[in-house]
Protein backbone atom coordinates (compact mmCIF):
# COMPACT_ATOMS: atom_id res chain seq x y z
CA UNK A 1 0.00 0.00 0.00
CA UNK A 2 1.31 3.44 -0.84
CA UNK A 3 1.99 5.49 2.25
CA UNK A 4 0.64 8.98 2.51
CA UNK A 5 3.10 11.16 0.67
CA UNK A 6 5.26 13.32 2.89
CA UNK A 7 6.84 16.37 1.34
CA UNK A 8 10.00 15.48 -0.56
CA UNK A 9 12.85 17.42 0.99
CA UNK A 10 15.92 16.06 -0.74
CA UNK A 11 18.87 18.37 -1.15
CA UNK A 12 18.95 17.28 -4.79
CA UNK A 13 21.32 19.98 -5.94
CA UNK A 14 24.17 18.84 -3.71
CA UNK A 15 24.33 15.23 -4.75
CA UNK A 16 25.26 13.45 -7.89
CA UNK A 17 22.41 12.06 -9.99
CA UNK A 18 23.12 8.49 -8.95
CA UNK A 19 23.28 9.42 -5.29
CA UNK A 20 20.00 11.25 -5.66
CA UNK A 21 18.51 8.20 -7.32
CA UNK A 22 19.74 6.04 -4.43
CA UNK A 23 18.09 8.30 -1.92
CA UNK A 24 14.88 8.36 -3.94
CA UNK A 25 14.96 4.56 -4.15
CA UNK A 26 15.40 4.31 -0.38
CA UNK A 27 12.46 6.61 0.16
CA UNK A 28 10.38 4.68 -2.37
CA UNK A 29 11.23 1.45 -0.60
CA UNK A 30 9.87 3.05 2.55
CA UNK A 31 6.62 3.77 0.71
CA UNK A 32 7.08 7.45 -0.16
CA UNK A 33 4.95 7.92 -3.24
CA UNK A 34 6.43 11.27 -4.26
CA UNK A 35 9.93 9.78 -4.30
CA UNK A 36 8.89 7.18 -6.82
CA UNK A 37 7.06 9.80 -8.86
CA UNK A 38 10.31 11.78 -8.98
CA UNK A 39 12.14 8.66 -10.21
CA UNK A 40 9.51 8.32 -12.94
CA UNK A 41 10.04 11.94 -14.00
CA UNK A 42 13.81 11.52 -14.08
CA UNK A 43 13.83 8.36 -16.15
CA UNK A 44 10.70 8.58 -18.28
CA UNK A 45 12.49 10.13 -21.27
CA UNK A 46 15.13 7.37 -21.43
CA UNK A 47 12.59 4.62 -20.84
CA UNK A 48 10.51 6.02 -23.69
CA UNK A 49 13.59 6.15 -25.91
CA UNK A 50 14.54 2.59 -25.03
CA UNK A 51 11.05 1.17 -25.49
CA UNK A 52 10.54 3.19 -28.68
CA UNK A 53 13.90 2.05 -30.01
CA UNK A 54 13.07 -1.61 -29.48
CA UNK A 55 9.37 -1.66 -30.39
CA UNK A 56 9.36 0.78 -33.31
CA UNK A 57 5.61 1.12 -32.76
CA UNK A 58 4.86 4.55 -31.34
CA UNK A 59 1.27 3.58 -30.57
CA UNK A 60 2.43 0.95 -28.05
CA UNK A 61 5.32 2.82 -26.43
CA UNK A 62 3.34 4.68 -23.77
CA UNK A 63 1.51 1.59 -22.57
CA UNK A 64 4.68 -0.50 -22.34
CA UNK A 65 6.56 2.37 -20.64
CA UNK A 66 3.81 2.63 -18.01
CA UNK A 67 4.02 -1.11 -17.46
CA UNK A 68 7.80 -0.79 -16.96
CA UNK A 69 7.34 1.74 -14.16
CA UNK A 70 4.55 -0.30 -12.60
CA UNK A 71 6.83 -3.35 -12.50
CA UNK A 72 9.66 -1.24 -11.10
CA UNK A 73 7.36 0.02 -8.35
CA UNK A 74 6.17 -3.47 -7.48
CA UNK A 75 9.76 -4.77 -7.37
CA UNK A 76 11.54 -1.83 -5.79
CA UNK A 77 11.56 -3.35 -2.29
CA UNK A 78 13.63 -6.24 -3.65
CA UNK A 79 16.07 -3.92 -5.47
CA UNK A 80 19.31 -4.02 -3.45
CA UNK A 81 20.96 -1.00 -5.13
CA UNK A 82 24.10 -2.93 -6.07
CA UNK A 83 23.53 -1.72 -9.65
CA UNK A 84 22.43 1.78 -10.58
CA UNK A 85 18.68 2.32 -10.51
CA UNK A 86 18.77 3.33 -14.19
CA UNK A 87 20.46 0.06 -15.20
CA UNK A 88 17.92 -1.97 -13.22
CA UNK A 89 15.05 0.02 -14.70
CA UNK A 90 16.35 -0.28 -18.28
CA UNK A 91 16.69 -4.04 -17.88
CA UNK A 92 13.05 -4.19 -16.80
CA UNK A 93 12.22 -2.12 -19.89
CA UNK A 94 14.13 -4.43 -22.24
CA UNK A 95 12.47 -7.53 -20.73
CA UNK A 96 9.06 -5.88 -20.93
CA UNK A 97 9.61 -5.08 -24.62
CA UNK A 98 10.66 -8.63 -25.40
CA UNK A 99 7.67 -10.01 -23.46
CA UNK A 100 5.42 -7.64 -25.35
CA UNK A 101 6.84 -8.63 -28.73
CA UNK A 102 6.55 -12.31 -27.82
CA UNK A 103 2.97 -12.04 -26.57
CA UNK A 104 1.83 -9.97 -29.52
CA UNK A 105 3.85 -12.11 -31.90
CA UNK A 106 4.92 -8.92 -33.58
CA UNK A 107 7.18 -9.37 -36.56
CA UNK A 108 9.56 -6.67 -37.68
CA UNK A 109 7.95 -4.40 -40.21
CA UNK A 110 8.91 -5.23 -43.76
CA UNK A 111 8.99 -2.46 -46.27
CA UNK A 112 8.78 -3.79 -49.76
CA UNK A 113 8.74 -0.58 -51.73
CA UNK A 114 11.99 1.17 -52.65
CA UNK A 115 12.53 4.84 -52.04
CA UNK A 116 10.97 7.27 -54.45
CA UNK A 117 13.07 9.54 -56.63
CA UNK A 118 12.21 12.56 -54.45
CA UNK A 119 13.00 10.71 -51.22
CA UNK A 120 16.37 9.63 -52.60
CA UNK A 121 17.40 13.11 -53.59
CA UNK A 122 16.13 14.66 -50.33
CA UNK A 123 17.87 12.10 -48.14
CA UNK A 124 21.08 12.27 -50.14
CA UNK A 125 21.09 16.04 -49.84
CA UNK A 126 20.50 15.94 -46.10
CA UNK A 127 23.23 13.34 -45.50
CA UNK A 128 25.69 15.32 -47.63
CA UNK A 129 24.84 18.54 -45.81
CA UNK A 130 25.38 16.74 -42.48
CA UNK A 131 22.60 18.80 -40.96
CA UNK A 132 19.38 17.40 -39.47
CA UNK A 133 16.22 18.47 -41.27
CA UNK A 134 14.68 21.54 -39.74
CA UNK A 135 10.98 20.96 -40.17
CA UNK A 136 9.10 18.35 -38.18
CA UNK A 137 7.66 16.83 -41.35
CA UNK A 138 11.13 16.46 -42.88
CA UNK A 139 12.39 14.83 -39.68
CA UNK A 140 9.42 12.47 -39.71
CA UNK A 141 10.14 11.58 -43.32
CA UNK A 142 13.83 10.97 -42.57
CA UNK A 143 12.84 8.75 -39.71
CA UNK A 144 10.46 6.77 -41.88
CA UNK A 145 13.11 6.28 -44.56
CA UNK A 146 15.65 5.24 -41.95
CA UNK A 147 13.12 2.82 -40.45
CA UNK A 148 12.71 1.25 -43.88
CA UNK A 149 16.45 0.78 -44.17
CA UNK A 150 16.88 -0.43 -40.59
CA UNK A 151 14.16 -3.02 -41.15
CA UNK A 152 16.52 -4.72 -43.59
CA UNK A 153 19.05 -5.38 -40.79
CA UNK A 154 19.09 -8.21 -38.24
CA UNK A 155 17.04 -7.22 -35.18
CA UNK A 156 20.04 -6.88 -32.86
CA UNK A 157 21.92 -4.63 -35.30
CA UNK A 158 18.84 -2.46 -35.66
CA UNK A 159 18.36 -2.14 -31.91
CA UNK A 160 22.01 -1.27 -31.29
CA UNK A 161 22.08 1.40 -33.99
CA UNK A 162 18.76 2.95 -32.95
CA UNK A 163 19.58 3.00 -29.25
CA UNK A 164 23.10 4.30 -29.81
CA UNK A 165 22.70 6.83 -32.60
CA UNK A 166 19.06 7.91 -32.41
CA UNK A 167 18.28 7.57 -28.73
CA UNK A 168 21.70 8.44 -27.33
CA UNK A 169 22.55 5.43 -25.17
CA UNK A 170 26.27 4.93 -24.51
CA UNK A 171 28.17 1.75 -25.33
CA UNK A 172 28.55 1.10 -21.60
CA UNK A 173 24.81 1.46 -21.03
CA UNK A 174 23.99 -0.80 -23.95
CA UNK A 175 26.35 -3.45 -22.61
CA UNK A 176 24.67 -3.33 -19.19
CA UNK A 177 21.13 -3.23 -20.53
CA UNK A 178 21.60 -6.01 -23.07
CA UNK A 179 23.89 -8.14 -20.86
CA UNK A 180 26.73 -8.01 -23.34
CA UNK A 181 30.44 -7.45 -23.03
CA UNK A 182 31.45 -3.84 -23.80
CA UNK A 183 33.84 -4.98 -26.55
CA UNK A 184 31.13 -7.14 -28.08
CA UNK A 185 28.84 -4.11 -28.26
CA UNK A 186 31.57 -2.07 -29.97
CA UNK A 187 32.31 -4.74 -32.57
CA UNK A 188 28.62 -5.38 -33.27
CA UNK A 189 27.95 -1.67 -33.56
CA UNK A 190 30.82 -1.20 -35.93
CA UNK A 191 29.66 -4.07 -38.14
CA UNK A 192 26.06 -2.83 -38.00
CA UNK A 193 27.27 0.54 -39.27
CA UNK A 194 28.79 -1.18 -42.28
CA UNK A 195 25.54 -3.03 -42.93
CA UNK A 196 23.30 0.01 -42.72
CA UNK A 197 25.56 1.89 -45.12
CA UNK A 198 25.43 -1.06 -47.46
CA UNK A 199 21.61 -0.95 -47.36
CA UNK A 200 21.72 2.83 -47.86
CA UNK A 201 23.98 2.51 -50.91
CA UNK A 202 21.78 -0.15 -52.46
CA UNK A 203 18.62 1.90 -51.85
CA UNK A 204 20.29 4.93 -53.38
CA UNK A 205 21.38 2.92 -56.39
CA UNK A 206 17.93 1.40 -56.93
CA UNK A 207 16.33 4.82 -56.28
CA UNK A 208 18.67 6.32 -58.86
CA UNK A 209 17.84 3.55 -61.34
CA UNK A 210 14.11 4.07 -60.73
CA UNK A 211 14.58 7.79 -61.20
CA UNK A 212 16.45 7.12 -64.46
CA UNK A 213 13.78 4.78 -65.75
CA UNK A 214 10.97 7.19 -64.72
CA UNK A 215 12.60 10.10 -66.55
CA UNK A 216 13.24 7.87 -69.59
CA UNK A 217 9.55 6.90 -69.55
CA UNK A 218 8.53 10.54 -69.29
CA UNK A 219 10.78 11.47 -72.19
CA UNK A 220 9.38 8.53 -74.18
Amino acid at each position, binding site marked *: *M*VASAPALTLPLDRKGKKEEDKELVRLSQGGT*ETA*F*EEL*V*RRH*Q*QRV*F*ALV*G*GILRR*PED*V*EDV*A*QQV*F*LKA*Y*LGIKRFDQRAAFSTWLYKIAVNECWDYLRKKKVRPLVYEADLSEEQVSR*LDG*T*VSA*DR*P*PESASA*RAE*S*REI*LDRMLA*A*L*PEQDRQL*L*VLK*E*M*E*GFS*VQELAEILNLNV*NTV*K*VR*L*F*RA*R*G*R*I*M*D*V*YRRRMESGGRNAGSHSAQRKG
Partner: protein
Amino acid sequence: MATDTEFVKIACTNYEAMLEDYLEGALSAADAKIAEQHWQNCAACRGALDQAASSVRLLRLAGPSNGPGPAFARTVMARIRAAEQDGSAERAGFWQPLVRLGWRFAATATIVLGVLVSYDAGWGHRAQPNGATARLIGVSDIFAPDPANPPANRDEVLMMVAETNHAN
Protein backbone atom coordinates in the same frame (compact mmCIF):
# COMPACT_ATOMS: atom_id res chain seq x y z
CA MET B 1 22.25 -7.73 -46.78
CA ALA B 2 25.92 -7.99 -45.85
CA THR B 3 26.84 -10.89 -43.63
CA ASP B 4 29.46 -10.97 -40.88
CA THR B 5 32.03 -12.61 -43.12
CA GLU B 6 31.45 -10.08 -45.88
CA PHE B 7 32.07 -7.26 -43.45
CA VAL B 8 35.14 -8.85 -41.84
CA LYS B 9 36.76 -8.63 -45.25
CA ILE B 10 36.38 -4.87 -45.04
CA ALA B 11 37.86 -4.08 -41.63
CA CYS B 12 40.61 -5.85 -39.69
CA THR B 13 38.84 -7.83 -36.98
CA ASN B 14 41.33 -6.81 -34.28
CA TYR B 15 40.71 -3.15 -34.96
CA GLU B 16 36.89 -3.07 -35.07
CA ALA B 17 36.39 -2.19 -31.39
CA MET B 18 39.17 0.36 -31.63
CA LEU B 19 37.59 1.93 -34.71
CA GLU B 20 34.30 2.25 -32.85
CA ASP B 21 36.11 3.94 -29.96
CA TYR B 22 37.89 6.23 -32.40
CA LEU B 23 34.56 7.30 -33.87
CA GLU B 24 33.33 8.10 -30.38
CA GLY B 25 36.51 9.97 -29.55
CA ALA B 26 36.93 7.53 -26.70
CA LEU B 27 40.50 6.43 -27.47
CA SER B 28 43.42 7.63 -25.39
CA ALA B 29 46.02 9.72 -27.26
CA ALA B 30 48.42 6.77 -27.33
CA ASP B 31 45.80 4.33 -28.66
CA ALA B 32 44.57 6.87 -31.19
CA LYS B 33 48.13 7.17 -32.51
CA ILE B 34 48.41 3.37 -32.85
CA ALA B 35 45.06 3.25 -34.65
CA GLU B 36 45.96 6.07 -37.02
CA GLN B 37 49.27 4.43 -37.86
CA HIS B 38 47.39 1.22 -38.65
CA TRP B 39 44.88 2.63 -41.07
CA GLN B 40 47.38 4.85 -42.79
CA ASN B 41 48.69 1.54 -44.11
CA CYS B 42 45.35 -0.32 -44.24
CA ALA B 43 42.92 0.81 -46.92
CA ALA B 44 40.26 -1.61 -45.67
CA CYS B 45 40.16 -0.11 -42.19
CA ARG B 46 40.29 3.40 -43.61
CA GLY B 47 37.28 2.62 -45.82
CA ALA B 48 35.40 1.00 -42.94
CA LEU B 49 36.03 4.04 -40.76
CA ASP B 50 34.70 6.39 -43.47
CA GLN B 51 31.64 4.20 -43.84
CA ALA B 52 31.04 4.13 -40.09
CA ALA B 53 31.40 7.92 -39.86
CA SER B 54 28.79 8.26 -42.64
CA SER B 55 26.45 5.98 -40.70
CA VAL B 56 26.62 8.37 -37.73
CA ARG B 57 25.53 11.26 -39.99
CA LEU B 58 22.80 9.15 -41.58
CA LEU B 59 21.32 7.79 -38.37
CA ARG B 60 21.33 11.10 -36.55
CA LEU B 61 19.14 12.65 -39.23
CA ALA B 62 16.02 11.27 -37.64
CA GLY B 63 16.74 12.42 -34.10
CA PRO B 64 15.32 10.79 -30.99
CA SER B 65 11.80 9.44 -30.86
CA ASN B 66 9.03 11.45 -29.21
CA GLY B 67 9.20 11.62 -25.44
CA PRO B 68 6.36 11.21 -22.97
CA GLY B 69 3.70 13.84 -22.53
CA PRO B 70 3.67 16.11 -19.45
CA ALA B 71 1.06 13.97 -17.72
CA PHE B 72 2.99 10.72 -18.04
CA ALA B 73 4.32 10.55 -14.46
CA ARG B 74 0.87 11.31 -13.04
CA THR B 75 -0.66 8.64 -15.27
CA VAL B 76 1.91 6.12 -14.06
CA MET B 77 1.20 6.93 -10.41
CA ALA B 78 -2.55 6.63 -11.02
CA ARG B 79 -1.97 3.24 -12.62
CA ILE B 80 0.14 2.18 -9.63
CA ARG B 81 -2.62 3.19 -7.21
CA ALA B 82 -5.21 1.35 -9.25
CA ALA B 83 -2.98 -1.73 -9.35
CA GLU B 84 -2.52 -1.58 -5.59
CA GLN B 85 -6.26 -1.37 -5.04
CA ASP B 86 -6.70 -4.42 -7.23
CA GLY B 87 -3.67 -6.00 -5.58
CA SER B 88 -5.52 -8.44 -3.36
CA ALA B 89 -7.77 -9.46 -6.20
CA GLU B 90 -4.76 -9.91 -8.45
CA ARG B 91 -2.96 -11.97 -5.83
CA ALA B 92 -6.10 -14.07 -5.41
CA GLY B 93 -6.25 -14.34 -9.16
CA PHE B 94 -2.68 -15.60 -9.21
CA TRP B 95 -3.40 -18.36 -6.67
CA GLN B 96 -6.90 -19.10 -7.97
CA PRO B 97 -5.95 -22.02 -10.24
CA LEU B 98 -4.05 -23.72 -7.39
CA VAL B 99 -6.91 -23.13 -4.96
CA ARG B 100 -9.39 -24.61 -7.46
CA LEU B 101 -7.15 -27.63 -7.95
CA GLY B 102 -6.88 -28.08 -4.18
CA TRP B 103 -10.64 -28.00 -3.77
CA ARG B 104 -11.11 -30.54 -6.55
CA PHE B 105 -8.55 -32.82 -4.92
CA ALA B 106 -10.25 -32.48 -1.53
CA ALA B 107 -13.68 -33.23 -3.02
CA THR B 108 -12.39 -36.33 -4.84
CA ALA B 109 -10.61 -37.57 -1.70
CA THR B 110 -13.82 -37.13 0.35
CA ILE B 111 -15.90 -39.11 -2.15
CA VAL B 112 -13.33 -41.93 -2.30
CA LEU B 113 -13.15 -42.06 1.50
CA GLY B 114 -16.95 -42.15 1.73
CA VAL B 115 -17.15 -45.05 -0.72
CA LEU B 116 -14.49 -47.01 1.17
CA VAL B 117 -16.17 -46.45 4.55
CA SER B 118 -19.60 -47.50 3.20
CA TYR B 119 -18.08 -50.59 1.64
CA ASP B 120 -16.35 -51.51 4.86
CA ALA B 121 -19.46 -50.90 6.98
CA GLY B 122 -22.15 -52.58 4.90
CA TRP B 123 -21.41 -54.17 1.58
CA GLY B 124 -18.21 -55.90 2.73
CA HIS B 125 -19.95 -57.83 5.54
CA ARG B 126 -22.93 -58.76 3.41
CA ALA B 127 -20.82 -60.36 0.73
CA GLN B 128 -21.21 -64.21 0.64
CA PRO B 129 -18.19 -66.47 0.34
CA ASN B 130 -18.02 -68.30 -2.96
CA GLY B 131 -17.58 -72.04 -3.48
CA ALA B 132 -13.80 -72.06 -3.45
CA THR B 133 -13.74 -70.31 -0.11
CA ALA B 134 -16.25 -72.82 1.30
CA ARG B 135 -14.14 -75.70 0.15
CA LEU B 136 -11.07 -74.23 1.73
CA ILE B 137 -12.90 -73.82 5.00
CA GLY B 138 -14.00 -77.44 4.75
CA VAL B 139 -10.45 -78.66 4.12
CA SER B 140 -9.10 -76.71 7.02
CA ASP B 141 -11.80 -78.27 9.26
CA ILE B 142 -10.38 -81.77 8.54
CA PHE B 143 -7.37 -81.00 10.59
CA ALA B 144 -9.22 -79.32 13.38
CA PRO B 145 -8.73 -81.52 16.44
CA ASP B 146 -11.74 -82.63 18.43
CA PRO B 147 -11.58 -80.44 21.52
CA ALA B 148 -13.07 -83.32 23.63
CA ASN B 149 -10.44 -85.93 22.56
CA PRO B 150 -7.23 -84.33 21.45
CA PRO B 151 -4.75 -86.76 19.78
CA ALA B 152 -2.18 -87.95 22.24
CA ASN B 153 0.57 -88.89 19.78
CA ARG B 154 1.61 -88.93 16.10
CA ASP B 155 -0.19 -92.23 15.35
CA GLU B 156 -3.48 -90.91 16.68
CA VAL B 157 -3.13 -87.84 14.49
CA LEU B 158 -2.58 -89.99 11.39
CA MET B 159 -5.49 -92.21 12.32
CA MET B 160 -7.73 -89.18 12.71
CA VAL B 161 -6.79 -87.90 9.25
CA ALA B 162 -7.38 -91.29 7.66
CA GLU B 163 -10.78 -91.62 9.30
CA THR B 164 -11.84 -88.18 8.22
CA ASN B 165 -10.82 -88.91 4.61
CA HIS B 166 -12.66 -92.16 4.65
CA ALA B 167 -15.76 -90.46 5.96
CA ASN B 168 -15.63 -87.84 3.14
